[in-house]
């Protein structure tokens, strides 16, 4: 195969009604690389994913996706209309797979027994697995996961992350994911992007975890007390993760 990245963004910006959602984002994702986006609520993580996938349009900047790139996307959650009768198998069939592929995907995510159940009747964790199964059907080169463990209980979260990790090894695909689970981020990720409208910092987890901006965003979330960090960038983050600016680059 070639060495060109699967996906890259160059100076991408997006505004919504004067408010900056994404500010000058550049990133590049190579084959088999795991990239995790972290950041506080409202940092634009999901927006960034949608722009990268082409689901939303950026105001400026360019987005490159490798020709013929097979993407498996797992959205943040399934918001199915309560009036829509849909079984798990029918939901997966929408990706137009072969029957055996559905069987294989359901078996791989461990929910074969849910095959004929209505989507409305299964638990949050099971729903996430259904979404993951559908993402697998395209035999993806790139798996894009938007907070895959949302609405899943603690033990389920660990299992889900282990499953994702195993799947990546089997498929040999790249992974782009939004995650709040810092343990997973630190242990499994090649590159971390710390996002707060703009990319605060990025790099290998170890490198990022000692970055002042990372500490400013996440330091207090860790149980171990991280000393209050004073850093000399052009802005700081307050306890909610909002950027405290000396100048107005957000309005």
């Amino acid at each position, binding site marked *: 195969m070639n060495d060109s990245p699967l996906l890259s963004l160059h100076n991408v910006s997006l505004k919504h009604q004067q408010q900056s959602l994404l500010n000058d984002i550049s990133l590049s994702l190579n084959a088999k690389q795991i990239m995790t986006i972290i950041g506080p609520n409202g940092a634009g993580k999901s927006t960034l994913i*949608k722009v990268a*996938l082409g*689901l939303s349009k950026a105001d400026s900047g360019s987005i490159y996706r490798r020709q013929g790139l097979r*993407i498996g*996307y797992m*959205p943040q959650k*399934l*918001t*199915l*209309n*309560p*009036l*829509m*009768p*849909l*079984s798990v198998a*029918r*939901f997966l069939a*929408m*990706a*137009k797979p072969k029957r055996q592929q559905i069987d294989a995907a359901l078996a791989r995510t461990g929910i074969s027994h849910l095959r004929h159940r*209505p989507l*409305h*009747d299964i638990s949050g964790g099971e729903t996430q697995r259904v979404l993951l199964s*559908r993402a697998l059907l*395209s035999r993806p080169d790139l798996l894009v996961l938007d907070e895959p463990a949302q609405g899943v209980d603690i033990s389920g979260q660990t299992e889900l992350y282990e499953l994702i990790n195993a799947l990546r090894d089997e498929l040999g695909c790249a992974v782009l994911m939004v995650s709040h689970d810092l343990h997973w981020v630190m242990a499994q990720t090649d590159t971390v992007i710390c996002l707060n409208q703009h990319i605060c910092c990025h790099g290998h987890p170890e490198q990022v975890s000692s970055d002042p901006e990372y500490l400013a965003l996440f330091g207090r979330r860790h149980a171990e007390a991280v000393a209050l960090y004073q850093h000399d960038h052009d802005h700081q983050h307050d306890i909610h993760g909002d950027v405290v600016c000396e100048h107005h680059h957000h309005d």
Partner: protein
Amino acid sequence: MIDILLYALVAGLLVATVCGPLGALVTWQRMAYYGDTLAHSALLGLALGLALQANLQYSVLVTCLLIAGLLFALQWWRNIALDSLLGILSHSSLALGLVCLSFIDNQRLDLNAFLFGDLLAIIREDLINLALICTLVLGLLWRYWPALVALCAHAELAEIEGLPVKRLKLLLMLMVAATVAVAMKIVGVLLITAMLIIPASAAARVARSPEQAALIAALVGALAVCGGLAGAWYWDTPAGPSIVLGAGCLFVLGQLAPGYRRSS
């Protein structure tokens, strides 16, 4: 005399058949308000047709399609909340239509017939037009059904998997516009949305798949048409409202049936 009843029955059944699958999609996509807006703007089309002395059915049809296209463009380009926009447009266009109609001095116009439908006044020519539009919409529904269902289930996933989501949304809007325009004669401007929403909602409880939902909704609609017509024939009730009432009764009955889902 039997002609009138036969025409009315065929017309009603045609509309019910289209409204089954289309109504299911409309409820899944939460487009009820959108249907109302189109229905109300149909009245504007009527006024336009009368002013221009054009064929009323076609002027209503063209107006509805234009409004649908306009709404689609507005939604796409400006990215505004469709809900409030529809709320404003819906009632403004109804009011505008009524005001315009009052300026047009026309004895042959029976406003009630347009507001509440006049199924028993269907003539051969109406029926042919109706059959044409219904066949066209049914054909499109048949052709694009899997894609439209995928759109309703999860638009983003459908888009990632390569479906032309934008075009499918436009198609759905145009099909609703066409159906609303032709169904106006059957149940009237104020009750058209009911024919889309009520049978589909009744079907949702018992159906086990999107296809079953569409089929059952069409069946519920057909039953409602038969019941409404019987009412109109034997007790001289207004046909349009009777049909909608019939659908409403079937919906209530459906709630008593055992549901597909264990929890709801």
